[in-house]
């Protein structure tokens, strides 16, 4: 499985309150959540994002609230993969559980620029920055987690 698209780059400690502000949590509809994704730190995101684009951030991405609405909003906005140096642990679980591909790779998080064209291979963990020609390798998931991802989320893996 692959993802290829334009990069939307953010910095450290992107919290779930800015990914999807609580004022919109009276809805749990993915499309409604996606319409407000990132708006408190990047008003243009929802207008600029295209299907398959890639979000890149630095440390502690998704910190704060446990709201699964955050990875749901990102996924429904069209993002095909989130790459960060580190993820906050609840966001990490939630992304895996709902089938939003994520990759931990500090080098990629540091070196990929906003607007770069990037291709990600989920099987090998290879991240290619087509714009700069640089290549990075993400930590592979443990087998246990790969199984959840391969079954397209936690609930499917229970059956």
């Amino acid at each position, binding site marked *: 499985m692959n993802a290829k698209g334009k990069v939307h780059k953010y910095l450290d400690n992107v919290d779930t309150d800015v990914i999807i502000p609580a004022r919109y*949590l009276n809805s749990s509809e993915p499309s409604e959540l996606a319409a407000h994704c990132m708006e408190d730190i990047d008003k243009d995101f929802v207008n600029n994002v295209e299907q398959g684009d890639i979000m890149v951030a630095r440390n502690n991405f998704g910190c704060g609230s446990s709201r699964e609405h955050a990875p749901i909003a990102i996924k429904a906005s069209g993002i095909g993969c989130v790459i960060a140096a580190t993820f906050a642990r609840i966001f990490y679980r939630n992304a895996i*559980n709902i089938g939003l591909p994520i990759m931990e790779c500090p080098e990629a998080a540091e070196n990929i620029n906003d607007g770069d064209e990037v291709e990600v291979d989920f099987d090998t963990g290879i991240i290619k920055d087509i714009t700069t020609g640089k290549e990075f390798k993400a930590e592979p998931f443990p087998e246990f987690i790969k199984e959840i991802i391969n079954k397209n989320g936690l609930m499917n893996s229970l059956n």
Partner: protein
Amino acid sequence: MGMTMTQKILADHAGLESVKAGQLIKAKLDMVLGNDVTTPVAIKEFKAAGFDKVFDKDKVSIVLDHFTPNKDIKSAEHCKMCREFAGDKDVTNFYDVGEMGVEHALLPEKGLVAPGEVIIGADSHTCTYGAVGAFSTGVGSTDMAAGMATGEAWFKVPSALKFNLTGKPAKWISGKDVILHIIGMIGVDGALYKSMEFGGDGLKYLSIDDRLTMANMAIEAGGKNGIFEVDDVTKAYLDERVDREYKIYTADSDAQYDAVYDIDLSALKPTVAFPHLPENTKTIDEVGEVKLDQCVIGSCTNGRLEDLEKAAEIFKGKHVAKNVRAIIIPATQKIYREAMKEGLFDIFMDAGCVISTPTCGPCLGGHMGILAKGERAISTSNRNFVGRMGHPESEVYLASPVVAAASAIKGYICGPDEI
């Protein structure tokens, strides 16, 4: 190799002799919790996967606390969905308006969490119950759905940071100052994926309410859980609430920690976290002049009886500054009633404060105290992210109840000694 307190609880719940940091395990759950924001998503997942009953009706708690009493039609629809699910699945611990409180104040108060238990909740502040020696951690809605269906959850066994507390805190220093100090020291990802284990001689000076505040904010350092050694203070609290048997775990003497921090409680000063991260802490003598528009005293962090009693000590005979709105939110119906009986409501109302029904409300910018563009609030809650309490250009400063109360009276951030 020895195990930490958290590792021993997880090993027992996974049916294993021992576990080590990094190991992936499946553990049995003693409680699965959700609220009116996260449970609707869990219900959809639960139904879509074809489950028709919960694993144990006594081990699921659903608390309608975030946008209640319903703030709008959509919130009302979410609550209705939770109510119908709880009724249909015969969920014992379903708390609706009239019985509900802020979930992390309510569950310990009702005796629904006990030492040695494993609890997951679809709310990040589920880590609160480590105050009574439980392993508890926040998860998302899908984990809640799977937990309700199977009674199990997967975990990566965490390594740990040890906080050795010594000394006696000064009069106005509370658990809030201790945890803000720690987050300021290690940062918002200082405990990422790790346990924060609290112990030491200084523990005896921290009440259960102090410990609940501290464990509550473990997530603000990125922690998987925060957990306290069980002592006589814990046992006295539990004696009045828990009648089932529970097991007290202690860390092995040779347990491994990633780091050990010595915290001298006697050296701490009132501490405030500046926008827009809980790690941006300053002691009260460093804050400078910060004028305020609003003060909120409440939340799962600091809406308990002791918090209200301390705030009342400051507010007694005083009045909030002109143009400052002071909002007091007792966290549960029981706390509300006790505060009223103790005469605290008269003190608050004479001081010009408003008293709300229990709700998470303003803490997450839901309702009951939203900030306009450019406004500043001091709050006893746990997060001060961009837009957390309203407009993206508003600001939230985190502090203890006594600092919040003193600041409301003066109209700018100050310590209780100024009153």
